[in-house]
């Protein structure tokens, strides 16, 4: 995180890379959250 960034390309590579990793983690987390939220519902409740 504290490494110096010299160019826009380095900046974009780092920030975009982190966002892609976060997005994958988020999708996995959201799937688990969805299951947590709906797991106790009966079919007719949905």
């Amino acid at each position, binding site marked *: *995180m*504290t490494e110096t*960034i010299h160019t826009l390309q380095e*900046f974009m590579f*780092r*920030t975009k890379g*982190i*966002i892609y990793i*976060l*997005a994958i983690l*988020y999708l996995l987390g*959201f799937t688990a*959250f*969805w299951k*947590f*939220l709906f*797991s*106790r519902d009966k079919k007719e409740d949905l």
Partner: protein
Amino acid sequence: MKAYLPETAKKRSLFSPFNIFAGIVIIMGLVLTFLRFTKGLGGVSNLDHTNPWGLWIGFDLLTGVALAAGGYVTAAAVEIFRFDKYHSAVRPAILTGFLGYALVVFALTYDVGQPWRLPYPFFVSQGVTSVMFEVGACVALYLTVLFLEFSPAALEWLGLEKAHRWAVRMTMVLTILGVMLSTLHQSSLGAMYLLVPSKLHPLWYSPYLPVFFFVSSIAAGLSMVIFESTMAHRKFHDMMDENHLKHANEVTLGFGRAAALVLAGYFAIKVFGVALGNHWDLLFTGYGIWFLVEMLGFVLLPVFLFAVGVRDRNIKLIKFTAVITVLGIVLNRLNISLICFNYHLPADERYFPHWMEIGISVFVVTVGLLVYKFIVTRMPILFEHPQYPQEH
């Protein structure tokens, strides 16, 4: 034409503690209004050229618009997506939205130097390249749409059957217009702050501010419907008909679930915003801790509390979480417009609202509460009009 008055409304005393308190606030507000329009902005506020936007913009406008989002969220859910089981929530939500926007415009008349020039951007000098023009145009149009969406209740009350039939026929068109206009101006309010990247703290500034404002407005609207319903059940329980009482828990559960999902998405895009600017190091500063308080305490915590509340069908927990979320939205809008705005200025140049500014904001909110009380105790908002069954 004879206005309908339900039996329960006749039993209510005019001299209730709330009415007496409201009366005192109204008198104080009228005095402050006189001072505002005779002495100018400088006479009642701490606004200056460095801080031209204060509490009236941060609280009355930004927060007011976000919290009034329940109108378009509920109308869209019921009229467009056909979640008919939430139908009993539509009229209270539309009313809250309508009053919310009306108060935004009312409060704005205190803020703009010459309130009689409020229509100028439309009729005299159109600044069509400004994002503020878009906000003004959308708010004006949406207030009209909300008025028309609310009109069936008022027309039932007044007994104007023919006009009522026309008003009901327009419901779908108005709902679609409402969603379009809300999408535009809720996001544009965030877009206004794209103009000040050097003044707004980097943790709150992001090119995605319009998206943040729009998504958070949906959560605000959902939570506000739950909050408003809780308050209405406490104060106007005797006004509610069987249909309202029967569906109340269902509305709370459904809206709590939706709020959990929306807030989960909102939390994610806010984290993406930090990542996009590579601002991780700022999280360990004073403002960073404040940012974490907002994100963890008023976004992530409500996500889990809503989810647990919905899973366990714990209505009390969902209602409590709705209050936290509403407070979180207030905090977020105040952070962006006041607390983290001009953050680089020395303390003595920072803005803090004058007590009279706070007084006028309290006055505006009280006017809203009084009008709300007047309407729900007379018009078919929480109950069905006997002559118009199934319209509600």
